[in-house]
């Protein structure tokens, strides 16, 4: 560490304690183990409707067409190696919880933070189904979402490079 803290007081006393209420407001992240997931739930059918009205304009009718990021892998693509195709939730997302977290915090792009938790569950269900990951009648909630094993999970490895002559 860069600072020499030897002569520092144990505490400077700046800042205030954060209240539980303040943290409840801000602490919106979802962990892969499901920590942070709210009550509520959503279905593929409900998600399909919301998707059509709030998302399709940017991500395409079926999540394939754009103009913005491709979200869905087509049936034809499913047989190919992931490297040869465009990144989608189906082939490049290692955790289903990330989908809930990201949609809730950042989408729709023009009105982030405007969705209800049930809407986010439903959209998550719809997109997971569209990528052939869950069944058409699956119901997604705080218990079921973290259980889902994503197809791309197996590919992810942590960078272990530490410098040195080897190019990796």
């Amino acid at each position: 560490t860069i600072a020499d803290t030897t002569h520092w007081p144990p505490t400077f006393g700046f800042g205030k304690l954060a209240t539980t209420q303040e943290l409840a407001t801000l602490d919106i992240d979802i962990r892969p183990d499901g920590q942070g997931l709210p009550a509520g739930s959503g279905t593929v059918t409900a998600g399909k409707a919301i998707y059509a009205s709030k998302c399709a304009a940017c991500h395409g009718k079926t999540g394939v067409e754009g103009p913005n990021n491709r979200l869905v892998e087509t049936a034809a693509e499913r047989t190919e190696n992931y490297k040869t195709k465009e990144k989608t939730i189906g082939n490049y997302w290692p955790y289903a919880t990330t989908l809930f977290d990201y949609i809730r915090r950042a989408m729709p792009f023009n009105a982030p933070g405007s969705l209800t938790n049930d809407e986010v569950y439903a959209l998550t269900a719809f997109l997971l189904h569209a990528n052939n990951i869950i069944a058409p009648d699956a119901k997604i909630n705080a218990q079921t979402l973290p259980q889902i094993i994503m197809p791309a999970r197996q590919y992810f490895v942590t960078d272990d490079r530490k410098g040195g002559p080897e190019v990796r």
Partner: protein
Amino acid sequence: AVVLVQTAIGKTVQAAIPEGAFIHDDPTKKPGPLPSLLGSRSQFEKPVRLPSDTSSRTPLQDLYSTLTPADLHYERHHAGVPTINPEAYELYIHGLVEKSMKFTLADLKRFPAFSRICFLECSGNYRSKADGKITPQGIAGLTSQSEWTGVMLSTLFREVGVKPKATWFLAEGSDAAVMTRSIPVAKGWHDAMIAYAQNGEAIRPEQGYPARLFLPGWEGNTSVKWLRRLELSDAPFMTREETSKYTEPIKDGKIRQFSFDMDARSIITFPAYPVQLEKGWIEIRGIAWSGRGKISKVEVSTDAGKTWQVARLQEPVLDKAHTYFRHLWQWNGNETEIMSRALDETGYRQPTMSQLLAARGESTGGYHLNPITTWLVKQDGQVLNKPDR
């Protein structure tokens, strides 16, 4: 040295300052504007960033050294630049800590402060163009350098009492993307800063005003801007930016994640497209940097990579900082290729694109590409970027 002439009306006029010098815009003939509150650029200088929808690139070819004027610092954000009132600003630290706390901007500034000159670079900092008509700004303009000042994160970790089992923390911004990244706690203890100043003054809005995380040497996205919250945890959060984005396919069908360090890189910024070169002595100039420490050497080739010479490095060579290099070359007018490669103190040597792809496989995606940049010098003095493969 002063010539005298007789005018029609018989007066000796001061021919030492000739007719031409009396024209309205001779600066020696009329007092200029008085001292002012704020300066501005000369009307003859108009350096600008190169904006796209998602980023804006520093005009590397227009800069003369390693500091980037704040208004030319590259930008990359995922939902635009938020406007944050510094009076309302608060940074929360919670999770695996003894005391969950919040700090106002004034609080942050009261803690012992620290400054360092460091580069920042987006890990997506690589572009090419088939016709070679691309500037250093176009190729590698997503890196800039500033002097950053703030409080060491370790100081705040001490204040809140980070628990021993905390291994990762989430950093969250208050932009419309509510940007989040998971960072190993070790980096927080080592050299992470909460920066509130840049080049002596308050951080600029595009760089995270009023306060940002700053992680020396790491991919820019991890230095979360407009920082509102840090949550200490025992595992990474696997946010969208560290899974769907900022990861890269490597060999054996794998995807590399948490690739934080920026690999050593360099680029010749002069001569470079669109410079029209003249024969004779030329000082080749550029910048080199490494996220893993100091630049130990920059090698320059003026014969398409057949031989390499050691360039002069501008002192002081700082840790994780753009380092300016210069190399004298006499161009005889023949077509050739010039290129530079950086070496860092870990022994790493900047590779060619072929070496990179050989090591990582062909479909490597757009992140962490640091190939040697080659400039083709044509007989007529045109300088073009040579496509990397």
